[in-house]
């Protein structure tokens, strides 16, 4: 029997366990069984992938870009969630604050999430820069909670929203997933409104080292892509992981993050 592929994932919440138990159960019924190993942070996971302890790592966009940097581009992205291909950063403020664009943040207080969160810290600074705003033009506050988990917990983004509510900041930059989690401003219309949404970029992806033979990875990816939202057993796993379909990755969607890392001098390791 084929040895199971070993997949790494970061335990950013207790629900990571049932997600990967579900994935393991699903793959046990296929020609490509898998097992998983959980890590406390993405740095350790990327180290384990590169050292050969893992066959695959379920990486955030930052972890992918860092793996690329540390392997001189030799690693491979295998598959992402449909939601990973259309990720965005949303700039929000109290409703009626009068923000109309990133330019209107000039001289105002913007709160960012954890420094290792692509969506809530690294890319927002990149988007400001693209809009002609340097860090000195906007009064930035950073909330570094849960560093190491690349913003997966969402905690720093919730803290950022709290800072806006508490009038410690005028606006916050958060991921589309957090914006959706608080109801896109529709639950309490008086609380928040979004005033700028970034271009779409890519988020998580399964990452493999070149040492994983194509003959092993391709059938595994084929089985992954075969998970079916209409199948109730698959669906419960997919709902927990936040997708309706597994899809091939979109590599050009990482370009903005690569540029941001270069501009901000973020090192290949943390």
């Amino acid at each position: 029997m084929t040895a199971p592929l070993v997949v790494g994932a970061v335990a950013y919440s207790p629900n990571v366990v049932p997600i990967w138990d579900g994935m393991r159960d699903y793959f046990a019924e296929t020609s490509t069984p898998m097992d998983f190993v959980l890590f406390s942070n993405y740095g350790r996971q990327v180290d384990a992938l590169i050292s050969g302890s893992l066959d695959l790592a379920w990486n955030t966009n930052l972890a992918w870009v860092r793996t690329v940097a540390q392997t001189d581009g030799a690693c491979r992205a295998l598959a992402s969630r449909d939601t990973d291909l259309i990720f965005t950063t949303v700039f929000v403020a109290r409703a009626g604050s009068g923000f109309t664009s990133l330019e209107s943040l000039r001289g105002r207080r913007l709160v960012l999430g954890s420094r290792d969160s692509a969506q809530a810290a690294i890319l927002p600074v990149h988007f400001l820069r693209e809009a002609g705003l340097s860090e000195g033009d906007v009064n930035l506050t950073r909330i570094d909670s849960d560093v190491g988990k690349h913003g997966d917990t969402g905690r720093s983004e919730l803290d950022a929203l709290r800072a806006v509510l508490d009038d410690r900041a005028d606006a916050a930059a958060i991921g589309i997933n957090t914006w959706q989690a608080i109801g896109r401003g529709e639950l309490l219309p008086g609380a928040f409104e979004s005033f700028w949404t970034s271009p779409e970029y890519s988020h998580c992806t399964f990452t493999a080292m070149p040492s994983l033979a194509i003959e092993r990875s391709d059938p595994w990816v084929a089985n992954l892509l075969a998970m079916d939202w209409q199948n109730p057993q698959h669906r419960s796993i997919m709902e927990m992981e936040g997708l309706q379909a597994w899809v091939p990755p979109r590599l050009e969607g990482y370009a903005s993050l690569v540029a941001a890392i270069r501009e901000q001098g973020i090192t290949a390791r943390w």
Partner: protein
Amino acid sequence: MVTPSALVSPPPAEPSAMGVVLDLIEGIGRVPTGGTVTVELVHANRIAALDLVAAWCASSGNELVSVEGLTVTVLHGRSPDPLAGLDPAQLPGSRVWVYTNFDCNLACDYCCVRSSPKAERRAIGAERLQQIADEAAAAGVGELILTGGEPFLLNDLDALVNSCTDKLPTTLLTNGMLFRGARLERLRRMDRSRLTLQISVDSATPGIHDSHRGNGSWAKAVAGIRIAHDEGFRVKVAATLPADQMHELDPFHAFLDTIGISREDQVIRALAHRGVADSGIELTVDSLIPEVTITADGVYWHPVAADHDDQFVTRDIFPLADAIAEITRRFVAHRRAAERAAEWFPCA
């Protein structure tokens, strides 16, 4: 020039209802699916915050479990539907029981509703029964079950029964002892294609039956079954047995076979500790799958306790759909509470 008013700091933000949602999202993210999170509301905006929490739960796929004072408990994910595992025939409102009256020609020593010749009639009446049948059919009820007391004591029973069978398949519970004269004529005016008679017989021989229901009652009941069969009615037999006799059913089934009762129509139930019964199984609201039951006094949880306040649900029989919905709501709440209690109960 900056005016003094512009220099005044903005007032501190009022306690934010949205802040409670942020607390919730954060807390929910830290517990596994199926776990619960509690958040504290601020008195000043309790109503707005509760509305927001409810809306957030609805949109995010989590469940608002309880609100006690300012403490709100939310379940991560949704608890499984407590009704999902039930046989469709067990869903509240799949059938509705109606007590036509409480007086009876017998005074059985285990009667769960204390019926006897001395019991007050407390008749449901033709008008109410007609409305029950109309509304039951409209509410998707599949069957009506009429019981008492002894329904054949009622002089208008044929009209009562026909008002039900006109709308829904109906079962009429009787002791089968009164099929003579005018009462037999009433039986003959009932709709054989829509009515099943359910006659009580407790044993294969007179001894046990008569010891509970009165001398000679067994022979009359068996004779009643024959009459009902001769008149072309489907007959079910229901036996009420103490728990210690439930293991010796073969002779009883064999007897019922000989008098033409098909096996699917042989109903044997355990004696309940209700009414005038001095022993039997204990049946409480939270341990009993409800069977919507209507008497002249209102709506009850289950026919076994239609004379007991602990299973009284509401005085308002109508709209019947509301009564069914209320029983369903309470049933779901009981099941969820039981599931939560089970989660808390340590194994060792």
